[in-house]
């Protein structure tokens, strides 16, 4: 019995010693003892196909050049391009009805996608300007020249979609409706610094005077 107990305790100690505890960080990929149907030979997004079906092994296929996927916006409409159909002129006004919901959506999306560079208020003082982007990021209020303030809505839409100079394109990351929502919100931000007292409803003015 003594020997049995000794071996028993030793065995437990070895297991604990080699296998460790729950939650220890490890580089080893999880053991799948019974493979069952855990990993099936089917296509998953963003995964390697391994089966050499395609040469580049990409699970998420790129469109074949010269083709357009069915749900991608290809029509030459102001909504899709920010330009008047058939011309290269930008549309003056947002093709979506500017509602409270659109502005709320725009604010949320602006915080997510734009504020890291342009700052929450659009003044070009986002966090990345502290890490090597100082002086490159545009101030959307553009206090001196008012250049961006005077741009048509379509041009801002185009900047978001395709980028401009040092700013990257956001078309792959932001849906079209959301881009227009952001444009509406950028307009609201700009207005907030352009408005004068007369434009504020009389009943709200008192609160401001204080």
């Amino acid at each position, binding site marked *: 019995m003594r020997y049995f107990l000794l071996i028993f305790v030793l065995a*437990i100690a070895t297991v604990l010693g080699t*296998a460790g505890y729950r939650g*220890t960080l490890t580089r080893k990929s*999880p053991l799948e003892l019974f493979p069952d149907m855990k990993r099936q030979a089917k296509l998953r997004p963003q995964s390697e196909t391994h089966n050499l079906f395609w040469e580049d092994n990409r699970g998420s296929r790129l469109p074949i050049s010269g083709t357009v996927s069915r749900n991608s916006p290809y029509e030459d409409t102001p909504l899709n391009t920010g330009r008047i159909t058939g011309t290269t002129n930008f549309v003056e006004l947002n093709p979506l009805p500017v509602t409270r919901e659109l502005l709320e959506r725009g604010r949320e999306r602006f915080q997510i996608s734009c504020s890291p560079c342009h700052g929450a208020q659009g003044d070009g003082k986002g966090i*990345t300007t502290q890490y090597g982007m100082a002086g490159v990021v545009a101030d959307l209020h553009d206090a001196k020249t008012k250049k961006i303030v005077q741009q048509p809505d379509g041009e801002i839409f185009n900047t978001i979609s395709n980028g401009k100079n040092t700013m990257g394109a956001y078309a792959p990351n932001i849906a079209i409706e959301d881009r227009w929502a952001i444009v509406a919100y950028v307009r609201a931000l700009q207005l907030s610094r352009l408005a004068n007292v007369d434009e504020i409803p009389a009943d709200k003015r008192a609160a401001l005077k204080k």
Partner: protein
Amino acid sequence: MSDTFPKWTNKLPAKVMVGAILVGTALTGGFWYYFTPKYVRVGYQPIQPVAFSHAIHADQLGVDCRYCHNGVEKSWFSNIPAASTCMNCHAQVLATDPKLALVRESFKTGKPIPWVQIHKVPDYVFFNHSVHVNRGVSCVHCHGPVNKMDEIYHAKPLGMTFCLECHRDPGKNLRPLDKITDLDWSYSQDAVKAATMAKSAGEKYVHDMKVNASQNCSACHR
């Protein structure tokens, strides 16, 4: 007349019983401890091809999860960002740093960065991000404090028990929709107070949004 069995055998049945119980307990305990997702998966932290840090990007810079994982609200899977998303910033920030060589190469050639996938439910499980994220389940519940991780690891077991624990009573795990990606958020600093607030708010969400977290096998195994 001599004994058929020597005296020491009197104690043998008891000893065998004790031995069997000990070994049985140890084996059951061992299996329970070592062969469940809490041990098998939690802590998995593969070496990634680029030393990308969520702690720097999500916490220090405060970039929202959806800046990079922008499909998470719309589709069943959460996308890993393309190199062009990184290059929005890294065209200027650390533009020549060797740590980002692979990202620049991928941006130029279009060859994907071979990120190692960490969270992976079995293929017979149907999972959907957007249904959870749009009903107030935060990333932190299923992925742990990602925004504090320099190198990302598997923080939650994500086994069937884990899913069902919540599906049986989702209310207390829900939070306001604008706090989904704010991983540090909680109802209150005080844990006890936070729990009661989560409970009462949860009942409201479940009622208002008609949350129906199904426990039918066919919800997750279709």
